[in-house]
């Protein structure tokens, strides 16, 4: 009789046991009708309960607040129902009590009749009973699961009347249970049988000790039933155990199952899960990306995640520029055609609506809110007195500042995640045993799951192989140095080529482009695109020399192509600067011409300088400057458009057409196209990421001069998301070596940061050092663009504010502040370094401890195995004898009875697992030692 095993679970089901034992006592009282003992027993019961409470409080401190609350709620509910049904039960109860008193006087046979009666009544009130039981069951379950102390606390809080009601409600059940129990146990065990017989027989005169024993027996019974659900017995066996108890309990088993699905707890969990699903559904393109990830691995998915992130950033940039700049100017500013900067000049009017011109962002598009030049320099517009120039300036600065902030914050967060690391000690086992999601019910989802499991296995295998690989270190080192040298040569060569070509084109430009042919005119562009096409291939070939892990190889590749593309950027900026200088020279000429023109106008039409009405000239006829800002904006917009077009067209031709050709020409070709030379294309992660990054750089550079750029970029990203998702799924094949990339790649972010810095430099330079055009844009008439701040400070803020500001901007204050900042940065950096080191040390310690534990476990397991062998030898004799004694009983379940005594016969085998007669307990026991 292994009682000690039961004790393990004792604390779990204590609450329930207490309850039932309590009712049991109550029944006896009723049957006796003795009122004198009531008081003493009550006191005893209370004492017991208090003991229980304290014990439970001591042992189960880990229960959470939430659980308490939940339990409390349920408890209250139960009370409500109890109160409702209280009266009915009371009536019934009186009848039953009468029955019972009669029954006690008579013999055991008649008792069975009563039981039948009772079951009838139970069936009659089945529906109501069920409700009550459900709740009670729930409650009990909660107790045993959470080992909760809340209930008992509640119990203490409640007054006696409630208790009385409860007791009365419970009485019919408990009596029948007790009887049935005595029956079942009389069938099975010898020790409890005697006790129970005693209990039935000598119910009238019970000593406290006997009562205790009885209670224990009942407790065990209850424990068994309570913990049965946690045991891996087949249902049949469970049912036999329960059925042998009584009809009522069998109904309860069914209720256990139905309860599992219809409890509040379940509903709450379901709601939570639905809410999670809803949250996932709210993340844009999450399903698409997951699908791609499951087929192409996390490296391709990382590109799409990056694209989505970029989309979010552009969304906010677009919101800022659209809401604070474009809409106010369009709604509240002067309408089109009121002033020269808002009208198409006379000479362009004929072609202003041509599609070719509009496509090039000339004509009407040029003279609209899309570009810098359209904006008026009026300080406050509309009835809101909206300070448009100030808003324009602040939005321009704000977008860049916001981008910096977001990029850096994301980088920091990613670094945090990387620092956490994850436990990979059971990586493969977890992948093998726990990766299938048993909730999947959709064939497509299942396909995706299969694919993703396969991909994750492949990724893990690649990682494992990489960590295992140890080749000739010297050779790889030499090869890596060689490869880097080659790449450096390539980069230097291409840099020189770009420099040379740019210089030559400047020379051509000075001499006039008309004298040269097509090649000379487009030399720079052609060289740039050729370099951009062939150098990545070259780098790819070179990187095979290095023999890096594919993830590291991707990073190198990205870095190299990035360096190459910087040349592209550099030429573009140089060309722009040249163009700006040209335009400014032109502007000077226009300025002088303008004064002459004005003088002519006035001289010609108004001979006398009197107060004659000013002449009205149509704004389209007034001469104007070239407006270099609009030109810059136009350049950027054209660049973005052409870039987008090339991306899409290469996607369609390079991927889709190739896939179609390979697919359909394969039938009539002399070699295997699908696995031979052309085959399907792989998704080019590095190229796409770089395209995205440079594109974003262009946006940051040009957004100040063309407020429409974020909107255009948003459109482009949106389209490319769908297009690329489609292209990847339909015409690309997964890479040969699928490797694991972290979803939030810090390397991409670092490159983005560099590009952001590089692109803000020229923008800031133009804003700070070049004076704005005299007749277009929100800053016309000012010497510098940032004068708008000065102006606002002077006219919109009180005088003292300006004073404070001027004091604050005093170098004597600014320099110490900067110094302080530098010091703070230095301090934070050094502390973070130490934290990192401590973290690493802790991790190392943990790892070594883990390994030690593993070794210890192995030793312990060996020892336990030895002990087990011995125990088995001795146990065989014992078990054979025990089986012999139990052979008289009918076999309960067909498959498992041979290895252990039937579980229905009580608590002897309560902890046993079928098929594992003794091993688990013994081993766990030894482990506990």
């Amino acid at each position, binding site marked *: 009789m292994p009682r000690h095993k039961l004790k393990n679970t004792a604390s779990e089901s204590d609450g329930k046991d207490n309850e039932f034992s309590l009712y049991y006592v109550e029944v006896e009282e009723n049957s006796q009708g003795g009122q004198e003992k009531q008081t003493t027993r009550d006191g005893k019961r209370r004492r017991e309960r208090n003991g229980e409470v304290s014990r439970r409080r001591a042992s189960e401190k880990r229960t959470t607040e939430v659980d308490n609350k939940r339990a409390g709620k349920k408890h209250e509910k139960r009370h409500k129902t109890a109160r409702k049904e209280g009266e009915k039960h009371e009536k019934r109860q009186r009848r039953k009590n009468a029955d019972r008193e009669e029954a006690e006087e008579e013999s055991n046979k008649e008792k069975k009749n009563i039981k039948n009666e009772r079951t009838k009544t139970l069936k009659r009130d089945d529906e109501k009973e069920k409700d009550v039981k459900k709740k009670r069951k729930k409650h009990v379950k909660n107790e045993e699961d959470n080992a909760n102390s809340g209930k008992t606390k509640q119990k203490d809080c409640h007054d006696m009347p409630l208790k009385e009601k409860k007791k009365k409600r419970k009485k019919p059940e408990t009596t029948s249970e007790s009887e049935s129990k005595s029956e079942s146990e009389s069938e099975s065990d010898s020790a409890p049988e005697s006790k129970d017989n005693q209990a039935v027989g000598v119910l009238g005169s019970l000593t406290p000790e006997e009562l205790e024993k009885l209670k224990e027996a009942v407790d065990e019974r209850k424990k068994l039933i309570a913990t049965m*659900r*946690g045991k891996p017995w087949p249902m049949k066996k469970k049912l036999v155990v329960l059925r042998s108890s009584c009809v009522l309990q069998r109904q309860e088993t069914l209720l256990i*199952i139905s309860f599992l699905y219809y409890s509040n707890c*379940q509903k709450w969990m379901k709601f939570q899960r639905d809410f999670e699903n809803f949250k996932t559904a709210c993340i844009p393109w999450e399903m698409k990306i997951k699908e791609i990830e499951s087929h192409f691995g996390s490296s391709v998915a990382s590109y799409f995640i990056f694209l989505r992130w970029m989309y979010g950033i552009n969304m906010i940039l677009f919101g800022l520029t659209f809401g604070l700049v474009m809409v106010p100017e369009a709604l509240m500013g002067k309408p089109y055609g009121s002033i020269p900067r808002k009208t198409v000049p006379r000479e362009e009017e004929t072609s202003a609506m041509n599609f070719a011109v509009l496509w090039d962002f000339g004509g009407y598009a040029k003279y609209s809110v899309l570009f810098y030049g359209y904006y008026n320099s009026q300080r406050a517009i509309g009835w809101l007195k909206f300070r448009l120039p100030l808003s324009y300036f602040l939005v321009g600065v704000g977008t860049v500042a916001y981008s910096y902030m977001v990029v850096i914050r994301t980088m920091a967060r990613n670094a945090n995640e990387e620092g956490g690391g994850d436990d990979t000690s059971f990586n493969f086992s977890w992948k*093998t045993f726990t990766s*299938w999601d048993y909730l999947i019910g959709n064939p497509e989802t299942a396909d995706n799951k299969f694919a993703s499991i*396969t991909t994750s296995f492949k990724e893990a295998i690649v990682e494992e192989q990489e960590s295992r690989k140890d080749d000739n270190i010297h050779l790889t080192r030499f090869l890596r140095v060689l490869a880097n040298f080659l790449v450096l040569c390539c980069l230097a060569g291409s840099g020189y080529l770009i420099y040379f070509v740019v210089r030559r084109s400047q020379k051509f430009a000075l001499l006039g482009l008309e004298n040269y042919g097509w090649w000379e005119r487009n030399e720079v562009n052609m060289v740039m695109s050729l370099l951009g096409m062939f150098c990545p291939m070259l780098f790819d070939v070179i990187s095979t020399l290095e023999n890096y892990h594919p993830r590291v190889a991707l990073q190198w590749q990205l870095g190299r192509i990035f360096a190459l593309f910087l040349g592209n950027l550099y030429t573009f900026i140089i060309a722009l600067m040249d163009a700006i200088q040209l335009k400014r020279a032109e502007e000077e000429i226009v300025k002088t011409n303008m004064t002459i023109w004005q003088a002519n106008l006035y001289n010609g039409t108004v001979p006398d300088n009197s107060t004659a009405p000013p002449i009205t000239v149509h704004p389209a006829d007034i001469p104007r400057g070239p407006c270099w800002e609009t030109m810059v904006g136009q350049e950027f917009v054209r660049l973005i458009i052409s870039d987008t077009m090339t991306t899409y067209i290469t996607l369609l031709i390079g991927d889709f057409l190739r896939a179609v050709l390979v697919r359909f020409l394969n039938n009539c070709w002399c070699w295997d196209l699908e696995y031979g030379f052309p085959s399907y294309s792989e998704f080019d992660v590095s190229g796409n990421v770089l395209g995205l990054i440079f594109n974003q750089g262009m946006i940051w550079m040009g957004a100040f001069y063309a407020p429409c750029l974020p909107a255009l970029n948003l459109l482009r990203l949106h389209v490319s998301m769908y297009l690329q998702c489609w292209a990847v799924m339909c015409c690309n094949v997964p890479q040969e070596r699928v490797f694991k990339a972290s979803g939030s790649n810090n390397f991409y972010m670092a490159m983005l940061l560099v590009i952001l810095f590089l692109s803000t430099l020229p923008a800031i330079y133009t804003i700070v050092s070049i004076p704005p055009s005299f007749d277009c844009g929100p800053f016309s008439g000012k010497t510098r663009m940032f004068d708008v701040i000065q102006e606002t400070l002077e006219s919109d803020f009180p005088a003292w504010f300006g004073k404070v500001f001027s004091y604050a901007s005093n170098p004597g204050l600014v320099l110490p502040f900067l110094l302080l900042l530098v010091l703070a940065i230095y301090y934070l950096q050094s502390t973070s370094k130490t934290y990192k080191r401590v973290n690493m040390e802790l991790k190392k310690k943990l790892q070594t401890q883990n390994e030690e534990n593993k070794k210890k476990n192995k030793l312990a397991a060996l020892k336990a195995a030895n002990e087990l062998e011995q125990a088995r030898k001795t146990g065989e004799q014992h078990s054979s004898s025990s089986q012999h004694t139990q052979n008289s009983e009918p076999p309960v379940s067909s498959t498992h009875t041979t290895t252990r005594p039937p579980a229905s016969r009580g608590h002897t085998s309560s902890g046993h697992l079928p098929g594992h007669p003794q091993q688990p307990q013994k081993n766990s026991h030894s482990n506990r030692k």
Partner: protein
Amino acid sequence: FREHEGGHQVSKLVKRCTRKRKGLSWSRLFWRILFKKKMCFMQDNPFRQRIAEVFSEDGEGNMTLDDFLDMFSVLSEMAPRDLKAYYAFKIYDFNNDDFICKSDLEKTLNKLTRNELTEDEVRMVCEKVIDEADLDNDGRLSLEDFQHMIMRLLVHKELYHFKGICWFNTT
């Protein structure tokens, strides 16, 4: 397989059975009919055959209603962790020898990946799994090894609550 559907089915079944029988012998229902009609979640499960075998009394996949209820009580999310772990172990133990050995692992892997891994890869993964999870160095996984592994997963991923009617959901 969503759990509310499952709950619905089970409750319906239970109701029907209680109505039908009233204490008589359980009607014998074959799992194939049930699976085909009722349980959409099983049709894509790579281990469906194995689950049926484990839970059926005769070990060949013919399930009675008892077995059926049994299965649901294990698959339900309220079922205790140890119970789930025990049955998961039984499911992965294809040859019923109470240990997960290499052949069992290979079968599991092939079912999980639909035979898309090469033999070398499968062998490597098997070796890694046994190397990781085998605590007593006998070259195969016992129930304790398995349980230990699962516990570590739950502690590590902070998954004290099971998502859905699955064994242990890692994602």
